[in-house]
């Protein structure tokens, strides 16, 4: 915490935090009113003759938020923060591995317990909790610095927007799956009445247009344009970040050579998405939401999108600081943070650490072909691994997995090979990330810097 006064910072931020809590209170009060008015409130138990319903619950939450807003506006925002010990503990356990695996675990839990988590009351509670976490964290200087940076505000909004849409689709899918299990058709088949482009669609579009324009105007007026110092060829900003939508790519570049992370893998993403109509033989889910009828497709897509793209964007935005070091939520972005990142190539592990000999090297004065041969010998462990990965895993999948065998029979050789290779390509990134983060500290499986070929 250099260069700032905690009390001054809290004074400056308390107004915003107070308004934040008050708007949360308004949000919950509106929900309570809606539930009460529409009669959708569910009753839980009776206390002294009064039936307690969900409307009462959210009304109580709104009252709590109102009190919190009052406290913050009264200049005591410091009270409303997470304990320092908890923050330090969170920072300590946080790291690239914890973050990514943690996201994966959370998403898996959400997926497995989807019939519980998609319930509106549960989802609403989750929204309140996450917003409460944001509010409590905003009193932390470092957290506030990063989250309220004009560059990053839209990304916070994007996270919530994405969560909402993921919830919405999962909610409808769970509902449909229940109906299908009961022998009814999906909900969409009952409400398949055709509606008119004009006025139904055009009106919606018009309203969306107006709302979007208003949002853009407010955004442009409220948030400063994130301008930086004049560009210089010999000075790179620290940290130097890509546009937010490319932060996943930038994170990929940490693990792979530019040609791989910047060209091959993004192209595979594009080609893989284009190939979906040819690969996907499952006709179910056409025109309605469902998860149970197409689990493989759902999981593959959500893994590729949520884990390998969105969480990497969030990580690149909020957790990567100067020198592209990893920083926890409440950690100061210190340009001199020292991280042990002594990365080692696979060939060095193989020749030096296992066999105790030097890496094979072309003798002095060797010709070009001869030295290429020596390089191939030197990198043979990585090359063998790569060939084995792509040549033996697809047949192994067919031989040892009942699921993939069934798929192979249904898809035929060519389509199955395309699918399995795309999946293996996708898996390359997490494999390399784990190899880098684990105590292996793997730098490159195949390292041929002489010809700019590293993998």
């Amino acid at each position, binding site marked *: 915490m250099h260069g700032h006064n905690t009390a001054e910072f809290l004074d400056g931020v308390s107004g915003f935090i107070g308004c934040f809590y008050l708007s949360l209170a308004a949000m919950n009060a509106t929900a309570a009113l809606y539930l009460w008015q529409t009669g959708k409130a569910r009753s839980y138990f009776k206390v002294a003759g009064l039936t307690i319903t969900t409307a009462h619950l959210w009304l109580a939450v709104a009252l709590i938020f109102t009190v919190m807003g009052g406290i913050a506006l009264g200049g005591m925002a410091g009270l409303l923060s997470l304990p320092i010990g908890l923050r330090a503990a969170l920072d300590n356990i946080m790291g690239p591995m914890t973050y990514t695996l943690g996201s994966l675990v959370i998403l898996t839990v959400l997926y497995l317990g989807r019939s519980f988590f998609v319930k509106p009351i549960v989802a609403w509670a989750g929204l309140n909790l996450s917003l409460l976490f944001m509010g409590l964290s905003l009193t932390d200087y470092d957290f506030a610095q990063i989250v309220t940076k004009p560059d990053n505000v839209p990304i916070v909004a994007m996270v919530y927007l994405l969560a909402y849409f993921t919830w919405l689709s999962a909610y409808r899918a769970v509902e449909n799956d229940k109906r299908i299990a009961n022998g009814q058709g999906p909900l969409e088949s009952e409400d398949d009445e055709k509606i008119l482009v004009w006025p139904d669609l055009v009106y919606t579009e018009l309203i969306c247009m107006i709302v979007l324009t208003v949002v853009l105007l407010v955004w442009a007026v409220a948030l400063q344009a994130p301008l930086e110092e004049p560009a*210089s*060829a*010999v*000075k*790179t*900003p*620290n*940290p*130097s970040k890509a546009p937010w939508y490319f932060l996943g790519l*930038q994170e990929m*570049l*940490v*693990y*792979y*050579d*530019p040609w791989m992370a*910047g060209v091959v893998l993004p192209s595979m993403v594009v080609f893989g998405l284009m190939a979906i109509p040819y690969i996907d033989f499952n006709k179910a889910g056409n025109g309605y939401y469902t998860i149970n009828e197409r689990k493989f497709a759902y999981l593959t897509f959500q893994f590729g999108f949520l884990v390998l793209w969105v969480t990497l964007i969030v990580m690149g935005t909020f957790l990567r600081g*100067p*020198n*592209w*070091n990893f920083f926890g939520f409440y950690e100061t972005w210190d*340009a*001199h943070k*020292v991280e042990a*990142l*002594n*990365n080692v190539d696979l060939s060095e592990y193989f020749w030096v650490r296992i066999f105790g000999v030097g890496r094979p090297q072309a003798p002095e004065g060797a010709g070009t072909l001869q030295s290429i041969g020596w390089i191939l010998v030197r990198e043979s462990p990585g090359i063998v691994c790569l060939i084995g990965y792509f040549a033996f895993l697809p047949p192994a999948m067919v031989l040892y997995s009942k699921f993939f065998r069934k798929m192979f029979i249904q898809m035929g050789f060519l389509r199955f090979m395309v699918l399995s290779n795309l999946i293996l390509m996708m898996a390359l990134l997490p494999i390399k990330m784990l190899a880098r983060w684990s105590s292996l500290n793997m*730098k*490159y499986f195949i*390292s041929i*810097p*002489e010809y*700019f070929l*590293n993998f």
Partner: protein
Amino acid sequence: MAKKDKMSVEEMLAAARASDGGGKGADSPAAAGDATESAPEATPAAAAEQPATPPAKKASAMSVEEMLAAARAEKKGGAAPSKPAPAASAPAADAPQKKPGQMSVEEMLAAARGEKKGAAAPAKPAAKAAPKPAAAKAAAKKGPAKKGPAKEAGPKDTASILAAARSASKPGPISKAEAAAQGKTLPAGKKKLEVPPMPAKPGYAKAPATAGANAERRGFLAVTLASIGVYMGSALGIGFGTIIATNLLWLLGLARYMFPNILTEPPTRFKVGFPDELAPGQVATKFKAQFGVWIVRDEYDGAPQIFALQSVCTHLGCTPNWLEGEQKFKCPCHGSGFYKDGINFEGPAPRPLERFAIRIADDGQLEVDKSRTYKEEIGQWSDTASYVPV
């Protein structure tokens, strides 16, 4: 005749011809009026002689031959009554007046002569002889539904009647095949142009005689030179010549532009001070902002030396920073790290930083040459031009 208003021109004509053929129409003002209105050929005589002529409809559709034939018929008509003759010939003369281009003087004369000679050939009996066939023919030909006799004679189906009427009385020009089918000669359209004989080939266009080939060549050269001279002297030549000259000058200027007198960029060869200004293990960062280079005094392979490291990350080309506290170069983009001697050790950078050529200049200062680089991974750092031993 009762439905005269609704009848088409053809029908009226047919009716008129029929009545003429019937003999009563010669004096009848109605028939004469009809004839004048629609077709000059509808004279009684013509009607008698050529009842089957299909073109007998409109003046405009009538060819000169037909008019002539009509006139001739009048002529031959001989003892046509004097009264109908002028009445009939009047339209015949009228038509040519409408389209004078189609009638030659002779024809007009012939028509006039025909009138004059008018003679005493009684057209009446001749016409009377075939009153019914003419009427029948006209009915069969025109046969539109509106006409009573046609209704009786022709088929009952409207479409076929119409088709028959159309095919028989098709106005406008007809093809040769149609004309042949109808046994009629087509009017000779335009007069054939008389093509004058081609002039004799000029000498230069004739095939060259093998004997005088040399002379021909000389002639050709002369002609070519002359035409070039004429061309160069012409306005076109001057215009294009100016454009080419201007463009050439512009290109030369562009080439000159590539070698400016003053370079605002720092020179690729520059001096960075004396070797003893650097303490052992020091990294001089003061040249980074201007030249993109660190001057390092360190050891490589156990040999103390001074070298110039390029401040460009070997991963993706960002500019790393020298962190004095951590004694390493660190890239802000993807976290690549390099030791003081430029060897990569952390992050994704696949190879060490590159060295620039460095030497001791004549005045004893270090001089860096950015035009040559040395890469460690291909063993170039052992090149003596890549370092200065201390």
